């Protein structure tokens, strides 16, 4: 037994009799699953429903003549994303394997996806942009880092202007914001808005002022005791009743309100965990230096607390991203909603498995990349 492969097999798969048994059971299970999937994919599945409706999945009924605006939005978002990634991974160099994987993904997207020529051109351009901004982020880390969050915040109104129009651009009503585009917008806006509210609620809950503390506890516990669908119902049906008669809120705005109300309560509990991890000594030391309470919180407590709960917060973001799918139940046409309407097309009746697997893959890619990024960030910050 000197062959390393055999040794590995023996150590990892056949170390004891029950391990061998488990291995065999697992192999049979895998074989059964693989066989089932292969037969289904090759003989039963009809992927036309996905290829024909690709545009609908991604953008829904967004006017085709204005797609260039969405491409610019994608370019802005990916540039900023790549710069951020570059800044945070400044310590390590761009590896050959990383570059290879990146080109492979782009290659697959370009070749396999049934896109028209212009889209392929845009995609290639964005791939180059990604690479350049990543390198820029790495090169000028010191210069960019302090401005990063500011640039991100600044990009939001620009992105909304490009998608929604107005101020010189042809306007696109929100009922035409569909598919993956709407999912991403809803998730991003809800994350950005629920974060500060969550932090405030967490500070309120740990505050020494009884009234503030009671209000925070009441809010957090009531919201956390309710199912999200109930809160979305509340936002869609009840919000208009609570507002003045002549004020009509857009459907999308109501949905975002619901998501933010919901997410903020969970965010607050995550942040509270971080606040509890800060030792009193830190606060006392800061006070001894003459900081007033507000500065102690902003400059000393929060940075440490938030760093401690990054995994929990990213987990929360992932949850929120997945939760946007519930908006399809209150009539929004985001990714799950568009899947519904595609399944209602007469020529694709009953193609549930293909459609749900496809959008499942999209959700999975986004959520899994977020969790990978969070793990990397955690390592970076702890080292």
């Amino acid at each position: 037994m000197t062959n390393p492969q055999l040794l590995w097999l023996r150590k990892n798969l056949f170390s004891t009799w029950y391990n061998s048994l488990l291995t065999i059971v697992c192999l049979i299970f895998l074989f059964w699953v693989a066989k089932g999937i292969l037969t289904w994919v090759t003989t039963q599945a009809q992927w036309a429903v996905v290829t024909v409706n690709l545009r609908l999945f991604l953008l829904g009924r967004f006017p085709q003549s204005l797609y260039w605006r969405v491409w610019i939005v994608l370019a802005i978002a990916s540039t900023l994303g790549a710069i951020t990634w570059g800044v945070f991974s400044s310590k390590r160099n761009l590896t050959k394997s990383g570059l290879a994987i990146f080109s492979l993904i782009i290659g697959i997207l370009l070749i396999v996806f049934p896109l028209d020529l212009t889209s392929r051109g845009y995609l290639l351009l964005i791939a180059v942009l990604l690479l350049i901004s990543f390198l820029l982020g790495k090169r000028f880390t010191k210069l960019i880092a302090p401005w990063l969050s500011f640039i991100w915040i600044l990009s939001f109104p620009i992105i909304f202007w490009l998608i929604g129009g107005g101020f010189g651009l042809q306007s696109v009503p929100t009922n035409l914001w569909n598919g993956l585009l709407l999912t991403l917008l809803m998730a991003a806006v809800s994350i950005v808005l629920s974060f500060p509210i969550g932090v405030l609620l967490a500070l309120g809950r740990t505050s020494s002022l009884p009234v503030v503390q009671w209000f925070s506890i009441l809010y957090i516990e009531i919201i956390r005791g309710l199912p999200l669908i109930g809160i979305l119902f509340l936002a869609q049906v009840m919000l208009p009743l609570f507002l003045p008669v002549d004020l009509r809120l857009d459907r999308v705005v109501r949905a975002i309100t619901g998501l933010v109300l919901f997410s903020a309560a969970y965010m607050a509990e995550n942040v509270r965990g971080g606040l509890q991890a800060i030792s009193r000594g830190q606060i006392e030391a800061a006070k001894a230096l003459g900081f007033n309470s507000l500065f102690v919180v902003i400059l000393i407590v929060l940075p440490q607390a938030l760093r401690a709960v990054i995994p929990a917060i990213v987990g929360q973001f992932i949850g929120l991203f997945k939760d946007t799918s519930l908006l399809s139940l209150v009539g929004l046409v985001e990714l799950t909603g568009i899947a519904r309407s595609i399944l209602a097309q007469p020529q694709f009746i009953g193609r549930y498995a293909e459609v749900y697997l496809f959008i499942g893959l999209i959700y999975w890619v986004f959520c899994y990349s977020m969790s990978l990024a969070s793990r990397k960030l955690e390592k970076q910050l702890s080292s």
Partner: protein
Amino acid sequence: MTNMKSLWRDRRFWQIAGQLLAVFLAVAIVTILWGNLNRNLQQLGIQFGFDFLKQQASFDIGETLITYKPTDTYSRALWVGLVNSLRIAVTGIFLTTIVGISAGIARLSDNWLVRNIALVYVEIFRNTPLLLQLLFWYFAVFLGFPKVESKISLWGLVYLSQNGIQFPWFTLSPEFSALLLGLTFYTGAFIAEIVRGGIQSVPKGQWEAARSLGLKPGLVMRLVIFPQALRVIIPPLTSQYLNLTKNSSLAIAIGYPDIYFVASTTFNQTGRAVEVILLIMLTYLTLSLTISIVMNLFNRTVQIKER
């Protein structure tokens, strides 16, 4: 003047003033919202009140554990929904605990295949929306099964068909089965990670000490490691149970008549948004509170006994 200045600098003064301001703001907001609500309801011609619960519901419910007919009242219909919710919550919590603990322990197995199959399970189910999984189970799996005449037999014990899962002594409807499987596997993936974290938090020395006493690996896990891991596991496990219970409200997407489904039908028929929302809130808050209390009692039994 000096008095004024010292008041200006007094922290107690600011604290009390700030809280008074908070109370004032809250009261003002509630008053404004309440006023709007009354005005809006008046315009819609709806009067607040729970009298409608005594009216005839006149809709049918697909699945009932207690007797119900469309001529019964709304309160009876809601009661049926609540029983259905409890049914899914209790069976779901039971099954997901088994799935979660098994997958969590499998994630730490010596066996490479077992470990990685568990990892793939967790990563797939955790990173896709529950709603999507439920739709998949219901529309792609259960409605994809053959008709009842040509049902699939699993070792002659269990039969799968469009009518659901048929056991020798009872049958589960496709709606219930899809919801149960969806909730179980989704929540199980989260519980698996919690269990893994809990087990890994037990110091290595405990394993070694238990082994050196001559205990077999299975017994080490059951008698030494797991009871200690439970201290770390139970608080997040409680939130997963709460999540499962709340998420059972997604039943509405696949037509299982739980409390949320019935309440929502009631709202559609009567237009009683405020009352229905209050009922939903009350139900779920009670359910959540009950689970929390039970789990906290359980939590107390596994804590380290100290003076």
